[in-house]
């Protein structure tokens, strides 16, 4: 397989749709880790995160001809992952709510924002205690470094709602962490 680094996602999608399905491997390679991590932070379960990530790529492939190439592919893919993860979370809500996996939250932006909270395990614990809609938005904004516009596309919420939810999420996060301390 040639070098497709210079191709953007949308160009690759066009090639996969019209010329060579094998090129889908390149798309999977680009996003598998990010999608897995995103799903993992929602579900907190490694095995289920792998299944959900796999389903995300399968669904994206099956519906690839329905993707509007004028839009951002990554937002579309994250949207599918979001739907899959939320469905899985609802199915196994009880079981997943009690999972306690100590996964460090490595992100400088996030850490800078929460400078007062030095302990990464604590941040991880606080995140886990947060309602899913706030947890998810913090992950998208800080860890996945998505813009407001991208988050609004992924969550299908107006940009104003996204901004308000991020601000609320930060407050909740600080409150939970301070209580824990």
């Amino acid at each position, binding site marked *: 397989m040639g070098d497709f680094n210079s191709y953007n996602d949308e160009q690759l999608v066009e090639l996969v*749709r019209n010329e060579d*399905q*094998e090129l*889908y*491997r390149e798309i*999977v*390679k680009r996003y*598998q*880790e990010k999608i*897995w*991590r995103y799903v993992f932070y929602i579900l907190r379960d*490694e095995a289920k995160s*792998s299944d959900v*990530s*796999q389903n995300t*790529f*399968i669904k994206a*492939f*099956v*519906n*690839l*001809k*329905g993707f509007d190439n004028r839009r951002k592919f990554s937002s579309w893919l994250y949207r599918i992952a979001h739907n899959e993860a939320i469905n899985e979370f609802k199915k196994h809500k009880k079981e997943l709510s009690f999972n306690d996996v100590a996964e460090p939250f490595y992100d400088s932006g996030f850490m800078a924002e929460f400078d007062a909270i030095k302990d990464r395990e604590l941040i991880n614990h606080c995140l886990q205690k947060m309602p899913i809609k706030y947890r998810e938005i913090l992950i998208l904004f800080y860890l996945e470094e998505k813009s407001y516009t991208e988050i*609004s*596309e992924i969550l*299908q*919420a*107006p940009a104003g709602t996204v901004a308000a939810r991020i601000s609320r999420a930060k407050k909740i996060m600080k409150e939970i962490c301070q209580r824990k301390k």
Partner: protein
Amino acid sequence: MSEKKINIEQEVMDKIHHDKIAMKPKAYFILGSIAFFLAMVSVVVISVFFSNLTLFAWRVNCPMKYQRLEMIWASFPWWAPLITIVGLIVGFWLMKKSELSYKNNFWLIIAGLLFAILTASWLIDYLNLNQLWLHRGPVRGLWQQQEFIGSRGVGGCGRHLR
């Protein structure tokens, strides 16, 4: 994670190679969009029709208004506003399901849709376009009942026809 990562890539590609999964054809999505568009048009048409029918049933021009009102109350087609409400709910659900609303203000779209439906209903009523289906369909029974009441001299009530 690295082992899982490889598995995701390999398993997805294996499924593609062994034809366990295939891309849905473009026509599937085009038909889906057409179906959605038609559903939305139907919802709007049905809502306009039934909200107009509601206005039509309520419109009375009569000196003994309160007695008339009781009679109309008893014979009022309650299914009409009910269907209008159901139609609107289905329409909003369809819009929420589609990707129409996420970039726009959903409530603004709803307000616009409501405004369009009510304006269309009022226009149809005002321009008397409902005369076209006055003697047919679901309105006929109501019309005949009003005519019958009018002919018995209960205040000489009838529709205020232009």
